[in-house]
């Protein structure tokens, strides 16, 4: 009887609370379209006896601020100058800008007191009706670009809460000082936007594949040592950027190249052939101690590490063709995983800083083009097409941009290579070098802290 009653109770009890048991179905709508933040940089306000040269430089700084933010064109809409709405003081008329759906307002004032130039810069959030950044101090006419990039980087950091590329620089290889008879390729450096280009090395030889330390103070690179016009060896050098001093760190027989720094800044991942098969090693810069990372009878080259140094991608011929692989660099041949399964000839795989994706060059339709693939081998997409031959891609430190080498054939004996910048989805912004010889092997340098 009790059993019967228990069943009776359960049969009544549960249907009541299971009434919604039919189930709900979640339909994922996906990512929202992002409305770009509207940002306005007012033309500079000049106070005191400002000369024409000083006026031009103040305007150059405002233009630089607009140009810097224009790199993040998917995030920001840069409004053109609107003199009728300009504020005379530092504080904007919030209601006017709110009516125009402006999100951020910035104002630069240059003031001359006696012979001393002072600047003040302030940015406001129109939505919150408050100041979000204030900077000021002595204005050095020779450091205007440095100041402009720093102001832009500070403002970007406050708005987006991420580091921008505005303080970054690029190191690259350039043949400007060479000739057809004697090609010379040296290491050069410039700001991220292509300005302030300058030469770093004077070997009068051929520099290859630079790698920059995480603090941006040292660069490791390879140098082809020639003896009476014949290649003798490819040796490894370390350059101190500030002093300009370079020292030989490895001259093992064969290849000593493709070096990249580990996040600790004390070790490098580098390809050594030692007269035999090329493999990748970890080398301690202080002691020169070596640890073998790949150990395969085929050639393993082009190491690139994620920002935390936990995964390394490299190019290997172990499948028969040049394919992209990843491994755990903490031991030899640990967790080797093949990433690419297609491509006639793949080259220069480079990790994004987050380690989530790899950009690489691949031979297709009679030239190299750039492709992107997720670190797990999914999501292969093409980034460049009908844009010359594109190689040597490398991610910016925030993972939003890719700088690469693009070659244009001018005649049967002449071609020109320049550096270009695009966003990670292949939206090309333009060239960074022009009339600076053939430029190759770009690498980003983190802003100095």
């Amino acid at each position, binding site marked *: 009887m009790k059993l019967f009653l228990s069943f009776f*109770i359960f049969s009544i009890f549960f249907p009541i609370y299971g009434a919604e048991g039919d189930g*709900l179905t979640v339909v994922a709508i996906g990512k929202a379209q992002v409305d770009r933040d509207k940002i306005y940089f007012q033309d500079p306000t000049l106070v005191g006896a400002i000369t024409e040269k000083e006026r031009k430089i103040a305007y150059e700084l405002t233009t630089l601020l607009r140009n810097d933010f224009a790199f993040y064109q998917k995030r*920001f809409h840069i409004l053109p100058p609107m003199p009728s709405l300009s504020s005379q003081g530092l504080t904007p008329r919030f209601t006017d800008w709110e009516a125009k759906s402006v999100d951020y307002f910035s104002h630069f004032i240059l003031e001359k007191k006696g012979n001393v130039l002072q600047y003040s810069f302030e940015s406001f959030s129109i939505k919150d009706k408050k100041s979000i950044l204030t900077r000021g101090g002595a204005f050095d006419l020779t450091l205007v670009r440095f100041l402009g990039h720093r102001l832009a980087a500070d403002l970007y950091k406050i708005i987006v809460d991420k580091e921008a590329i505005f303080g970054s620089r690029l190191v690259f290889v350039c043949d400007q000082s060479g000739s057809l008879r004697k090609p010379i390729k040296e290491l050069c450096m410039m700001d991220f936007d292509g300005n302030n280009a300058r030469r770093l090395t004077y070997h009068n030889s051929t520099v290859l594949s630079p790698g920059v330390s995480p603090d941006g103070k040292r660069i490791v690179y390879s140098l082809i040592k020639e003896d009476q016009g014949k290649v003798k060896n490819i040796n490894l050098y370390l350059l101190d950027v500030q002093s300009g001093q370079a020292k030989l760190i490895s001259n093992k027989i064969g290849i000593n190249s493709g070096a990249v720094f580990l996040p600790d800044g004390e070790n490098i991942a580098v390809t050594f052939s030692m007269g035999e098969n090329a493999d990748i090693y970890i080398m301690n810069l202080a002691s020169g101690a070596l640890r073998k990372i790949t150990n395969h009878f085929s050639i393993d080259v082009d190491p690139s590490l994620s920002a935390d140094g936990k995964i390394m991608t490299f190019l290997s011929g172990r499948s028969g063709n040049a394919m992209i692989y990843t491994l755990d660099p903490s031991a030899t041949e640990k967790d080797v995983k093949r990433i690419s399964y297609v491509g006639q000839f793949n080259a220069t795989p480079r990790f994004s800083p987050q380690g989530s994706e790899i950009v690489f060059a691949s031979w297709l339709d009679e030239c190299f083009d750039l492709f992107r693939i997720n670190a797990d081998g999914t999501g292969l997409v093409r980034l460049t097409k009908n844009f010359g031959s594109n190689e040597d891609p490398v991610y910016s430190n925030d993972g939003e941009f890719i700088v690469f080498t693009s070659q244009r054939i001018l005649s049967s004996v002449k071609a020109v290579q320049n550096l270009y910048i695009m966003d990670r989805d292949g939206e090309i912004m333009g060239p960074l070098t022009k009339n600076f010889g053939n430029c190759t092997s770009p690498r980003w340098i983190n802003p100095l802290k």
Partner: protein
Amino acid sequence: MMKANTESNEVFNYFVVSLALHVGIIGSILLVSWVLTILNIQIPLLANKPKINIAQNAVRVDIVSMPKMTLKELENAVPSGEEGKEEEKPPAPTPAPLKEEPKENEESFIKEKKQKNFSEMLKEMSKKKLEKKDKLKGMKGELNQLLLAGNKISKGTSTTGITAEQQDALSAYWSRLPDHVRPFWRLPGYLSRQDLKCRVRVYLSQNGDILKTIIYESSGNEEYDRLALQAVRAAAPFPESPNEIREQVLAGNILLGFPL
């Protein structure tokens, strides 16, 4: 005899008391249930959480060669549905062909036959081209949807789950909703940079009008929730639901995930 009667009376009394107690317990449960239902209160331990299914299909993509189209080209590609609309454009006026007019009474039977064959051949050729073009457009549309839709149900070679051919009316209806709502799903820059998500429960009439929308899972950010609701309301009317799923749609069995 008396003893037996007393015992049977005691058993009967126990039975009556037990029955009364059980009826009382059942009655109380029913009463509490009724009150909870009326007041729309759910007790976490007792209430069965509704089963939540994710509307998506298993898709296997075999990469057999490097992609020919760039990511930008794929994003700019016109969705297949819109391509269809383009094809409905009235045909452009054909220019007068630049050829000699045949003189009257000069047409021989053979010539006529040849001309007829040639024109037929041209027609056949043009048909072939059109077929090929249509096929390409279809493929492009499919690829576009596959790559752009994100978690949208797409055709593919399934190894598990329901194949496109096996989709019933329900999943076919679900699959239309992301494209329907996404154009209205917009966020300001500062909100898009936060890792937020919410789910909106939608009750729809058969003709696609919104009967009710509620935030089923909040993002914790009032404005994000408001913009998700705004996107749903702006997307109305929704596609008309087929008869087979009318009850489920009316009962609000759809949760729209922003973004998942």
